[in-house]
């Protein structure tokens, strides 16, 4: 198995605060790796470390087998592109000039490919417009274009769809899937918007308090995500009593709603509720989403 990125016991301390706490992870080559975590969990810190903006306090990471302490790491970084937090663009320059600037930084011998890049991110009509007149979505797409300027094999995106309109989100998602499929680009993407992430990620890493608490492939996640019956009733204590009598596995979702997992005799439960004069308001079958999986995981980690 080849990895684009491996991290072993990475730690990053700011004063007394541990932003990263013995973080270990593996990102397979060709994967779209979704980094999932709440605010302050360490996602951005991790991406900053990997991109060389900051140095780890302890531990190490490797990019395409090259350790961060190696003198050759800068050559490997030529194969990387990233958009960290907000897009890094010169607002007083046009989209085209921003790309030219990045081409110079990369040492590219000519400006061939700029038009294709602008077309790829959907900015071909705005190429001569100054970035200060761009919307947030356009700036984000320009940031991605800059990250792609070096034809990277490994793309890191830190919450790239924050603040983007729904159409923009779809465009970015389709672009990333296209890059992954056509160029076998490895993509590490951190996001809060789990629904979007679930539409493209092939692997997930769940980060909490500076550590990766779980890494799982999309296939494994799908297998482990359980179906359940969501039931809304007029009297939740009665429902709880009935479920306990049936030794059913359940989770209370709200003051009148519960999810029931596993195999169950729904007719029996309905009859027992009816005898107790408990009305059933609604009944539906559900799959566990990435969101509920993550909440359960983090809740489990918190309870450990």
């Amino acid at each position: 198995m080849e990895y684009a990125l491996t991290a072993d016991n990475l730690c990053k301390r700011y004063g007394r605060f541990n932003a990263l706490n013995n973080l270990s992870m593996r990102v397979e080559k060709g994967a779209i790796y979704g980094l999932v975590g709440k605010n302050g969990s360490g996602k951005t810190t991790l991406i900053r470390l990997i991109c060389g903006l900051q140095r780890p306090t302890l531990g190490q990471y490797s990019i395409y087998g090259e350790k961060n302490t190696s003198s050759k790491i800068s050559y490997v970084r030529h194969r990387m592109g990233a958009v960290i937090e907000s897009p890094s663009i010169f607002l007083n320059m046009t989209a085209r000039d921003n790309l030219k600037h990045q081409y110079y930084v990369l040492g590219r011998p000519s400006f061939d490919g700029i038009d294709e890049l602008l077309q790829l991110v959907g900015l071909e009509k705005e190429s001569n417009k100054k970035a200060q007149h761009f919307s947030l979505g356009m700036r984000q797409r320009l940031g991605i274009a800059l990250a792609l300027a070096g034809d990277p094999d490994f793309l890191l995106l830190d919450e790239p769809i924050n603040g983007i309109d729904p159409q923009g989100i779809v465009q970015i998602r389709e672009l990333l899937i296209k890059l992954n499929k056509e160029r076998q680009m490895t993509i590490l993407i951190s996001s809060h918007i789990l629904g979007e992430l679930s539409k493209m990620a092939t692997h997930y890493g769940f980060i909490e308090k500076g550590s990766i608490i779980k890494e799982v492939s999309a296939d494994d996640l799908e297998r482990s995500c359980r179906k359940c019956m969501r039931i809304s009733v007029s009297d939740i204590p009665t429902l709880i009593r009935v479920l306990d009598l049936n030794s059913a596995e359940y989770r209370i979702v709200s003051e009148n709603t519960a999810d029931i997992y596993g195999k169950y005799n729904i007719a029996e439960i309905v009859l027992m509720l009816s005898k107790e004069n408990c009305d059933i308001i609604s009944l539906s079958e559900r799959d566990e989403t990435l969101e509920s999986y993550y909440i359960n995981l983090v809740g489990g980690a918190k309870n450990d």
Partner: protein
Amino acid sequence: MTNLLLSNFLRLLKSKLLWVTFSLMALFAALMCIWQYTPYSFLYASSIDLEEIFLPIFLLIPVMLAYFVSLYIGADYDYGTIKNKLIVGCSRVKIYLANFITCAVSGIFILLGYAIVAFTAGVPLFGFFSSDAKTIMLYLFVEICMMLSFTALFTLIAMLNQNKGTVMAITLISVFATLIFSLYMLSMLEEPKYVYMPDYSDEFLPLIERPNPDYLSGVPRIICQFVIDFMPTGQVSQILSEADEHLWIMPFYSLIITFASTAAGVFFFKKKDIK
């Protein structure tokens, strides 16, 4: 590093900052020529040399450089574009040196903004330089070395601090504060050795020559002289006061400051966490 320099110069050409600074210097030069050519100026001097038109450049350059360097390097942090260089593997040493060289070349360009107008307008109004070519070249060499030392110091501050407002405040305040300090030290050095004081023992209070109690001598004098020779603003204060007997040593001190502050800047920038 050529790549980084090319990208920096592309950004310079596209930004208004360099042209604004260049224009300001040209404007100052024009105003200087007009001011010196007014009848008011001739009340105090029977003739005005072209050298006097060029003297203010020694004060203007550090102020303009403080403004330029803080905004130019600050923009890289403000827009976050320094990240784009680091992410693709550009070495921190090269990023630092490229920024320093860009600011130094810009400093020369800004200097030219003043020199071109001062020369073009000044020669017809006041004639050519009255000093010999060797002196003029020495002043030019001192100015360029001084400009490099200011650039190195301001680059150090700007590269280690991500807030361009703070950098501009620190650099400008430092220039004026150290200039005032230098002028004070210069005034101490310029105290005469002997002064004429009234003899109070004589009813006619004749003036007699006595040693000046404020005259600095010995080790304090050597230290004081070294400090204002070494400090870039000390050099400015000496040149503006035409107390420039130590002109020959100023470039050496300027180059020491340039190398030392660049080395220190590179050292600390390599360790800096970019946020």
